[in-house]
């Protein structure tokens, strides 16, 4: 479903080139759940951003199902994120001025893929029923991350990308949140690629790949 070939990305820092990714190859099957680990600065988040089309690669290809992401325009990449990718960040990135209910549906509404039954199920599975009218600032970290996961999965994407989704949570909450995510991913059948520092959490997924010095080790 996801096929990455010879992917490279270089940034410039204080005038010096920093080679973050140096020819990454990675495949993900439909419904497969993969953990991406590596030390800080190894390029995990950069790889995730390139797959999501948040940034453009210098060379190499990323193919999601029948679409070559690396050849898409900015608007094309936006469409891909909107319709086929779900994104979860460590900082939750909820919209502070929208209630929990509105945060949950707004990506699905933008994509025109709102499904009332699925919305209801998501609320139930994520345990957000009593929080729908609250605002993000009135929620705990774990609750906010559950809303972010719900928002990402509300469109039933082909691929869920999560960048250290449990980085701000305590161990017990992190495990709860990840368990919920695994459940929902299985329920939707989408692929799941999660960046994490925790080998313990990585072990709970189907496969674990390690990124070292810009290459898959």
């Amino acid at each position, binding site marked *: 479903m996801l096929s990455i070939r010879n992917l490279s990305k270089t940034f410039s820092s204080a005038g010096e080139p920093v080679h973050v990714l140096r020819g990454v190859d990675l495949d993900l099957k439909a419904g497969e759940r993969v953990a991406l680990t590596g030390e800080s600065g190894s390029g995990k988040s950069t790889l995730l*951003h390139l797959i*999501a089309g*948040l*940034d453009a690669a210098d060379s190499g290809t990323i193919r999601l199902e029948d679409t070559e992401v690396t050849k898409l325009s*900015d*608007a094309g990449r*936006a*469409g*891909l*994120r*909107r*319709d086929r*990718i779900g*994104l979860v*960040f460590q900082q939750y*990135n*909820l*919209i*502070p*001025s*929208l209630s929990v209910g*509105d945060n949950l549906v*707004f*990506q699905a*509404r*933008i*994509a*025109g893929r709102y499904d009332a039954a699925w919305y209801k199920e998501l609320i139930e599975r994520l345990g957000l029923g009593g929080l729908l009218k609250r*605002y993000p*600032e009135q929620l*705990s*970290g774990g609750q906010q991350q559950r809303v972010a996961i719900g*928002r990402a999965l509300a469109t039933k994407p082909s691929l869920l990308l999560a960048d250290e989704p449990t980085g701000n949570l305590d161990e017990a909450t992190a495990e709860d949140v990840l368990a919920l995510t695994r459940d929902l991913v299985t329920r939707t059948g989408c692929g799941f690629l999660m960046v994490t520092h925790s080998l313990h959490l990585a072990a709970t997924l189907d496969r674990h790949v390690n990124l070292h010095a810009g290459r898959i080790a």
Partner: protein
Amino acid sequence: MRRALWVLAVLLSHWRRHKMQFATLLIGLIAATALWSGVQAINQQARNAYDRAAATFGGARTPMLVAPDAATFPQELFVKLRRAGWPVSPMLEGRIQVNGRSVRLLGIEPVTLPVDVGNAPRLGAADLSNFIAPPGQTLVARETLNDLQEQEGAAPAISSGAKLPPLRVLPQLVPDVLVVDIGVAQRLLNKPEQISRLLIGKPRGKPAPLASVVGDRLQRVEPNAETELERLTDSFHLNLTAFGLLSFFVGLFIVNSAVGLAFEQRLPMLRTLRACGASARLVNTVLVVELVALSLVAGLIGLACGYFIAAALLPDVAASLRGLYGAQIPGQLSLRPEWWLAGIGISIAGALAAAATSLIKAVRMPVLATAQPRAWQQRQRRWLILQSGAACAVFAVALLLLQYGQSLIAGFGVLAALMLGAALILPAFLDIILRTGQRFARQPLALWFWADSRQQLSGLSLALMALLLALAVNVGVSTMVETFSRTFVGWLDGRLAADVYISASDNAKGVAIRNWLKERSDVQAILSGGRAEAQVQGQPVELLGLPDHALYRERWPLLEAAPRAWTQLIPGNAAFISEQLSRRLNVRVGDVIDVPAPGGTWELDIVGIYADYGNPKGQLAVNVAALIRQFPQTPQTRIGLIVAKENIPGLIAALQKQFALDDRSVADQATVKAESIRIFNRTFAVTSALNAFTLGVAGIALLTSLLTLANSRLPQLAPLWAIGITRPRLAAIELTKTLSVALFTSLLAVPLGLLVAWCLITIVNVKAFGWRLPFHVFPLQLVELVAVALFASLLAALLPMIRLARMQPASLVKVFANER
């Protein structure tokens, strides 16, 4: 479309959670639109009135034939010209007194009146017969009817005792004018068979040359695109526009501040939207649509407010224009659709201009950039250097304009450059002051006070700039008005030399009054004056006849004079010239001026220049006997008397009884002076109102900036609260900080305001009105204005401070919990 609506809903949700910021944005836009549109409405109203005046049965917009000496001429010339194929129509003009009020009487001949006479009110066929057939009609504007305290259909008597035809309201007619059939006018003005001018219609075929029909007895005057009144009042309207523009920019400061802060706060939201698949184009388009929609709503509210502001100010503006230029502006506001459209347009354009930086940032925003909610504060140092450089460049422009600019626009350019430069350099000045304070602070709290004030500066600088500009304009205009006021009162003391003033309705009555006065032992001297009108170098000029009396020599103030100036006046070949006319004609003492008179050209040596404040017309003062010799038809109806103070009330009562004179026709010096000062104060009432508005808007700018900053300042305040400083004390410190920067700003505004006053007095006033005043500084007034500015700042700072003092500890704890 649905996608765009969702993005719009998400963007709008920000305002739901930041109501004060939303209010700030709307208030800024409403204030900017309201003040700008209000001023434009007033200007439009005045221009409409000038158009009406110009179009009144062949005003300046119609070609005409007049006598070279501007006097009346025989009706037979009209007959000759008609026979020679000239499509002319006769008109007679003069002044009459109705119910003690002087009005312009126009006699027209409606049958021959050209159909293409400007926008002249037309008389329908039915009306035509009523107008011509006895008893005829007197056409009058509604405002004039009210001023005369008459009803439609009434036939009031004029001062000579003759009756006017019944009054009929003609809505399009200009105020202060009565229109009658020319035959009626000739009878009422006692000018049988006389005509003032001939209006020229569109010729059919080629008429005989003018000279072959009437010789050199008549000359053709081409229509003016801009009337004399429009030229005179241009500067006044430019003044008003400048005020409106200043208020508009102060309003945009508020908008810019609100949009800038909202953009920084919404950056994470914009990135999330992009991360969720909304394209950059969609997000940017919706941002613009949102802004346009908000400015549309605010623009409409602003227009409604602008209408009310204009309606409230119009009587004062009308009084100013009447006092300064003799222009008649109706007090009822009527607006054209263009005004509404322009108001909406200016609101949208202003909002887009104020938000341009934020919108450009949004367009260029990389989706992956890390959040920098307060980056605009961190970039302050670089901005300070850039702004200071720009300020120096603007000051250089001001200097160049001062050195080489000649026009009124250049004068305003100097003012604008001065104020813009000062506003740009203000944050750097304040930064230096606060840094100096920080360097000398020893106590930790004092150190924090100065350091935090500096940090807060970037968020407050726009509001402080608005305060600086508003206060500087207040100082400048107030100094100018006060200078004018004191000069005017001193000048009045000199000009109003006589103790009692009499205005007779006609020459016969004037003679009777003078004869009666000669018999009175309580009258020490009778000073008879006279006035005539002429055209000098294309300018309307009033000729003022002064009697030869020691009192004038002692008290009449002259700005410049040749040796023995008063003695030179007596033979009748010398004149004093008013300051504004001397500037307009570029005439100095020692020059010679030619005045067309009925008997030929009157050559006058200029032997003195005098101030003539408040007179829209240029004036030449000559010996009254010489004036009557040159202009035999000069009415001798004005009489001044020298009377011992204790005899004044008795004499006035006797005059009123003997000659049935009302209060308008006879008055003592104190009454005339009080009336002049009342008119003067009314003239500048609009300036005071606009001053107050500008300062009010600056106060709102400060309030809104403080309110929008209040929430984002919690991370700075929470640590102090955590180490034991109570919330009320924190609030007090915040209040002191705001008042300190407002005080520094106000102190900087004082020298800037004095510079503005100097520019107004020595450049703008001279170009606009033709007179130059001595420059005075009024320290008490400056202290008063600074106190008002500080009070406005205190009011602005109070609400956020009360909120801080009452803030729940939980809100401050959240800062540490990283859950905000």
